[in-house]
Structure formats: C-alpha cells, structure tokens
C-alpha cells in the first residue's frame, strides 16, 4: 500500500446493509453509507434535524464540553437561511482578487521557508501554520494573530490524551469572548465587527450568536484543512507526475482539488437528530436517535464514481459530498477551495519533488470501522524545482 493511500473501510457495509453502527458516548449513531441516502437525508431537514442540543450532531458528540450553539450550522431552515444569507457574502470573499493575492503571498512564503529545511514535520510546521495564517484573511484580522492560533496546536477541542478536551475548548472560548469585547469597544473591519453590526429579522445579533458563528469558523476549518493539506502533500510525494501536470496544464488544478476533497473526505461524517420514527434504506430509525451522513463513505460509492479508490486528477464529473450537501453545505468551502488551489499551484511552480521520511497514520475509531483520515505526523522534505 502506498503511504498516501486512504483505504475505504465502509465498502462491505455500504454494499450489504447501507448502514453502519457506532456507539458514541452512549448516544448511538446509525451511519448512512450510500451516496444517494446521504444526499437525500442531508436535504430532508424536517426529519433529520441540526437544531438539536448544541454539540449533539457532531460525532464524537460535544454535548459534554459545549453549551454554545454553532451558527448557522446548528439551526434548521427556514431560520437557518436568514443567518446563512447574512454571512454568505463574507465567506465568499476568498474569490476576490486581493484575497487570493494575499493568500498566494502567504503560501508562497511558507513553501519558500519549507524548501530551506532538511526535514519538516508537515502537520505542525506546515499545515497548521498555513491554515492559521490563511484564517487571518477569512477573519480579516492582522497576520500576527495567527501566532496565537498556531500556539494552540492542531486541535481546537482535542488533545493528545483525549478526543474531547474541555480545557482546550475553554482557551478558545475565552479568547473569542475577549475578541468580541474588543470589537464592541473598537469596531474594525473584521468578522467580529461585521457580525456585531448585523441584524436578523430587525434584531442585532447577540454576543452569544456572534460567538456561535466564530466558534464554528474556528472549529470547522482547522482539522479539516490540516487533513486536506497534509494528505495532499503525502499524495504528491508519490505522484510527482501530478506536480508536472499542474505546471503544464494549470487548468487541471480545479478538478484536482475537487478530486482530492472527494478522496480525502477531510470530515468523515456529520450527524442529524431524527425528529420522528422513520426509515432509511429499509432500516428503521427511532425518533430522538442520531444518524450520520457519512461523507467519506458516500464519496467512495461505486454506484456514482468510477474507480472510486483512485485519485483521478482530472475527474470530470465529480458529485462528491466532501463539503457536505444541501442546506448545510460547508460555509468555509470557498476559503478551503482557494487554499487548496493556491497550494497546488504554488507547489507546482516551486517544488520538483517531495520526499517522505517517516509518518504515523491518524486512524479514527468508528467502532465498526477504522478510518485513516490523515497523519499524526509526517516528516518530509520539499526539493526545489530545478529548471
């Protein structure tokens, strides 16, 4: 097996039953594994709800470490749509020329620094830095702020010893409270100030709502982007020909990014709470239990994707659900796509090859399934392109 390979642990269950079972802190989850079921269920917000107790739709559940509701993520339509419409233009800013230029400059500088080092640990010394610096653009705060975020380490809620770390979460919450107070005293052009000045149905957002949106922005785009970036580096180390292709045909980069998001599926799954007794693909599901939309499984469904376990860099039709699907599709997707596009383009222009020295896989334990989602560490070297 190649080091960069991410096996599909769901295949058998997807074909035979369509579902998997996972116990998560005594709040069991029925995992939906087929592409069609995942999309239909994601669309059906009336029965499969997001507006449950905060933290319950996340797997592993965060109900014991979080009281705050993430917005608009943990609200159902139609109210969801009001919040979403409010923040959508802000989260589309990565498409602006100036944003893209700043991002390119950041990533270019990081790749340049990285090429000078003999061994780089890709997660701590590359992906985390890249993600944190890029996040300053999404927040529209000074670049230096990224130093604080980098110091928090790779996981916002998780630590080495525990999948759910309340102390870590508190560092983030206290930080956000401080930033909101600062923005109230001295409004700027940043995300906090924009939110504080916003209204939904004629009412200003409360501090709690602003915090809910900011928490989502921090939590949703950390592990996911770090996994996507790290997996991309591992893939390119074994596929130098793809770097060459991006150099010669930069127009393939968009398709390559979508394909990587499909194959890597940086977020394995997201839950919903079931509002009434129902069934999905002939399996009965009881009210007030949880299902999960298993994006990682849906993205390997051979009913939809030819050769699902291969990265086909220029896959033309690619209806993947790597950024979720329907009402709650990923708010940060524009930012994430722009990061990945700029990263691939910058690597292609500057790096001739990538060597991996050693690594440890990060395997998620989903009871019935064990899924590689990325790496705990990945030591590598970027070799400069010699023209």
């Amino acid at each position, binding site marked *: 097996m190649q080091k960069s390979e991410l096996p599909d642990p769901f295949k058998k269950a997807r074909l035979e039953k369509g579902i998997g079972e996972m116990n998560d802190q005594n709040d069991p989850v029925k995992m939906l594994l087929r592409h069609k079921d995942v999309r239909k269920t994601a*669309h059906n917000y009336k029965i499969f709800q997001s507006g449950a107790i905060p933290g319950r739709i996340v797997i592993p559940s965060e109900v014991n470490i979080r009281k705050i509701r993430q917005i608009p993520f943990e609200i159902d339509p139609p109210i969801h749509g009001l919040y979403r419409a409010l923040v959508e233009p802000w989260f589309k800013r990565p498409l602006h020329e100036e944003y893209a230029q700043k991002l390119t400059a950041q990533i270019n500088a990081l790749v340049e620094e990285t090429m000078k080092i003999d061994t780089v640990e890709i997660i701590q010394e590359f992906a985390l830095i890249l993600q944190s610096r890029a996040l300053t653009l999404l927040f529209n705060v000074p670049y230096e702020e990224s130093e604080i975020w980098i110091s928090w380490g790779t996981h916002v809620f998780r630590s080495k010893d525990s999948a759910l770390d309340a102390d870590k979460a508190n560092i983030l919450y206290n930080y956000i409270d401080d930033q909101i107070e600062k923005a109230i005293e001295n409004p700027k052009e940043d995300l906090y100030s924009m939110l504080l000045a916003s209204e939904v149905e004629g009412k200003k957002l409360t501090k709690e709502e602003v915090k809910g949106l900011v928490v989502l922005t921090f939590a949703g785009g950390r592990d996911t982007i770090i996994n996507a970036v790290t997996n991309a580096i591992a893939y390119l180390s074994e596929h130098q020909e793809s770097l060459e292709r991006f150099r010669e045909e930069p127009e393939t980069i*968009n*398709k390559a990014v979508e394909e990587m998001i499909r194959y890597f599926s940086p977020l394995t799954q997201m839950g919903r709470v079931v509002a009434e007794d129902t069934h999905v693909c002939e399996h009965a599901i009881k009210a007030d239990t949880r299902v999960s939309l298993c994006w990682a499984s849906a993205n390997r469904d051979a009913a*939809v994707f030819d050769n699902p376990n291969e990265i086909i860099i220029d896959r033309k*039709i*690619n*209806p993947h*659900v790597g950024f979720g699907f329907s009402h709650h599709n990923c708010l940060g997707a*524009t930012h994430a*796509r722009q990061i990945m596009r700029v990263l691939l383009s910058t690597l292609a222009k500057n790096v001739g090859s990538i060597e991996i020295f050693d690594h440890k896989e990060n395997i998620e334990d989903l009871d019935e399934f064990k899924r590689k989602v990325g790496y705990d560490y990945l030591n590598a070297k970027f070799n400069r392109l010699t023209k």
Partner: protein
Amino acid sequence: MAKITFITSDDDTIILEGTSGSVMELAVEHNVKGIDGNCGGVCSCATCHVHVKPEDMEKTGQASVIETDMLELDDNADKFSRLCCQLEISDELDGVELTVAK
C-alpha cells in the same frame, strides 16, 4: 461562436458571447449574478443552476443522470433545469436563453 442570454433574479438581461469552455465559466467570468460555479464545473455544488427557455431545450438537450440526481434535491428545479457547468459552448447553443435559478 454562441450568443447566450442570461436573465438574473433581478430581471437583468445579460447577453454574452463565447466560443469554448462551459456556460458556467462564461457566466462566472462576466459576474452573472447567481451563478457561482463553486466547484469549478465538476457537478458537485449546483451553484450554476439555470432554467432553459422551453423552446431552447432542443439546443441544450436534457440533463444527464448525475445532473438530474443533483437537481432532484433542489426545491427550485423543474423539467427545464440544467447545471450550466455541463453545457459546453458550441455553435449549437447560439441564441439560448437561460434564467438563473433562485
């Protein structure tokens, strides 16, 4: 060369000419409101949904199965819906009128 008319949700009429690429790319390049083309044209995001003028369906053809599966879950879709990333610009598309979906 094809001349393509877009009608946006603000009732603006925008007429664009293209020779190659997809209709979505043409629309994004000219900032047609409501066509985002987030996924760059691989049929994964449905942010390039248009309603084809019924008499122009002959020129555009029907949606593919993958497209139909996607549109099936879009509450604003109808039998004239297409994802315009899947419409390749060619002389055959000359004169089509597309209303950008809400």
